């Protein structure tokens, strides 16, 4: 582990509230290359607090890349320049001494800014509440091995279910599309036998909610997959489209 500290100029987006006008504020910091971006911000905030100034508001929780709370846009990339890496796992050794770094919130109309680097991603919860579940009451489940599921189906379902709901896909997309996120959710259930009874209603309910909340459509630039910290595949978007079109023919209930 290296110990030579590096000097950086940070340009951090400051914005008091959703309606206020925001702007970049510059800070000079000296930081250990072993620190993560978020630990660098912790140190900066401790300094600002000592000076009686307003610390930079940002969110994080697990700092292991799984909870999906963090998600800063660093030098134009959601979660920064390293592929398949969440902001909390991005260490300063990936930057050069003397570099200038731009740190912004995720920008998308359905994710309004709350303060500084914090955005409101509750739209994701609303989409999931619309249909991302299997209607099954506790206590009525058959034995877990009663329905065999092929290893391939289970693995593919888990590939989709690994989505951490951070919103990077939306922030990366020029259309603010949430189709990678919704596609991942729809795929997880569509690939499993347990997901079949509500398969076609689910996809319709979720797509309608997604549109209603102002997310855009996919125009196949694949920026979402490139920026996704879990590497969720765009094939989930293709599946979402197939499921949605099939639903128009096969669903017993016309939702959309």
């Amino acid at each position: 582990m290296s110990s030579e500290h590096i000097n950086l100029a940070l340009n951090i987006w400051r914005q008091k509230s959703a309606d206020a006008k925001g702007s970049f504020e510059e800070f000079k910091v000296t930081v250990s290359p072993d620190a993560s971006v978020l630990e660098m911000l912790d140190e900066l905030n401790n300094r600002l607090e000592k000076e009686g100034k307003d610390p930079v508001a940002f969110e994080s929780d697990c700092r292991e890349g799984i909870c999906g709370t963090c998600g800063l846009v660093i030098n134009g990339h959601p979660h920064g320049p390293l592929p398949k890496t969440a902001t909390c796992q991005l260490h300063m050794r990936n930057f050069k001494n003397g570099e200038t770094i731009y740190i912004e919130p995720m920008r998308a109309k359905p994710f309004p800014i709350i303060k500084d680097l914090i955005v409101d991603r509750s739209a994701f919860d609303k989409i999931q509440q619309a249909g991302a579940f299997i209607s099954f009451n506790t206590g009525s489940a058959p034995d877990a091995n009663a329905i065999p599921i092929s290893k391939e189906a289970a693995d593919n379902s888990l590939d989709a279910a690994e989505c951490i709901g951070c919103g990077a896909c939306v922030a990366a997309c020029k259309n603010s599309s949430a189709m990678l996120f919704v596609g991942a959710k729809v795929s997880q259930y569509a690939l499993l036998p347990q997901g079949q009874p509500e398969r076609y209603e689910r996809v319709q309910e979720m797509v309608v909610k997604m549109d209603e909340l102002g997310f855009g459509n996919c125009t196949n630039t694949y920026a979402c997959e490139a920026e996704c910290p879990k590497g969720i595949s765009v094939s989930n978007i293709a599946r979402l489209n197939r499921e949605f079109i099939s639903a128009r023919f096969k669903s017993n209930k016309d939702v959309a």
Partner: protein
Amino acid sequence: MIKLDPKVPEGNLAEKWTNHKFSMKVVNPANKRKYDIIVVGTGLAGASAAATLGELGYKVKAFTYHDSARRAHSIAAQGGINAAKNYQNDADSVFRLFYDTIKGGDFRSREANVYRLAEVSNNIIDQCVAQGVPFAREYGGTLANRSFGGAQVSRTFYARGETGQQLLLGAYSSMNRQVKLGNVEVFPRREFLDLVLVKGRAQGIIVRNLLNGETETYSAQAVILATGGYSNVYFLSTNAMNSNVTAAWRAHKRGATFANPCYTQIHPTCLPVHGEGQSKLVLMSESLRNDGRIWVPKKAKDNRLPNQIPEDERDYYLERKYPAFGNLVPRDVASRNAKYVCDEGRGVGGGRAVYLDFSDAFERIGKDGVKDKYGNLFDIYANITGVDPYEVPMQIYPAPHYTMGGLWVDYNLMSNVPGLFVLGEANFSDHGANRLGASALMQGLSDGYFVIPYTIGNYLSTEKPEKVDPNGTEFKDAQNNVKETVNKLLSLNGKQTVDEIHKRLGHILIDKVGMSRSGKGLKEAIKQIKELREEFWTDTKVVGKAESLNQTLERAGRVADFLELGELMAVDALDRKESCGGHFREEYQTTEGEALRRDDKYTYVAAWEYKKAGNWKLHKEALHFKNVKLATRSYK
């Protein structure tokens, strides 16, 4: 006057839960919608409880300080979840899972609770599969299992290294279904700050709306806390940044007794601390100890690089001291011995880290073989440290990881405060003095899906379904109490930041109330924590306002509570003059340096009643073992 009644049902161990389910009163289906239930915390325990209570028809209000219910720290659990399915035909049974859990907890948990946990473990797996949790499968389509520490059977179900995430998303999806159906309302970005008692019963909560700083009041006929553990009292732990003890602690100050606070688990295989700016510690799965060999230089303050230290100048201390189990000794033994060698100055470069070396495994199965088994863990290590573990041995050090202690609950998971139920890591009930791997997820979901839905009905059937006025006197008083604390914190204009005080508290605790404890050290810790608490309330600087988003204020409130809890942990550890599980008292060890349990004097739960800051009264709940024989753990 508090009297702790564990309310363990009569009858044979295996029939207690079945009999109890029948003898409990039920609320009729049409009446359930007249009852409001508050659930604080939306991790495995909270989300599963909220979902199931919603399904039953209760009106549930679920609170979380996260922006979304899906972010709770249950999500970070890697390894898996135990169940006594016996799908491997390897002689597993409910009784075996019960026995392993009781023994793993070093005979300091309640038999009846642990047996019920083992009993419902199978239902949990059924339930999660039905919800669409994509567990690992065999090629034939059946569920796969892996082995975990402390068990001789293969009973752990998993979803890659992301089991916690998948189980949490399952519980969250069930809860979302109830949101859509109108039975559950979720209140995100709300932090619990006080419990409201009306005529001695828990009937409401005060929360801070983290977006605008308003203190809001909510009422119900019962309150459930599922707010997790308190490892962050050490500042550096594997817990998430926001994990805290505030909900449990403020309930404790309203009368709920806090049980066994000194039982904390320090996980041996975590990444070492890199510097003062570090914010948390990262766990590496302990499966690494299957193939990695742990060693330190024989000489103190040896600054040579690992490849320059010849074989005969290395001390493989676990293999030397525990030839039978070697590097696979239980978590507490591995952690304690790492501390000892580092205390002697024999850590890496004289610091606080030991080597976890895979050279032998590279020779035996090749680098590709190691990559197959542990590739993702090696990647995590390289990502965080910037060092390639295929070339240079890993460095590891123990870190606080889980807390077995928590609010005292009876068999029904109700605290000694009527109407206040406590689930998951926040209660003390199932893991005794040490938790086995893959048992935390099991307990959270057992409590939420399969225990509370029954036991809360038994309680509510004695409560009239009359709406509780959230503007009543008790609520106004509690609200004022909260506002007073907030204003007091904001008036602090000293020189130190909240984090600085928190780090100092962490240093005291990890040093004196961590892996190894002594009467002398504990007394010093109590004195130092009292002084630090004084310093906190005079010399901290808390910036910002009450009526807005203020993360500094959030942290300050949590640290204020940690400063009180830290003292109680030391008080409890001082009282327990024996060594058991995660609690090791240096005065009580065998001649060979192993933990010495004192069953004649300490086979009890220590439940502490809050009197005032720095003053508690001890209540003891005697533990009775009728189905297992108390044995001494040996790993030689």
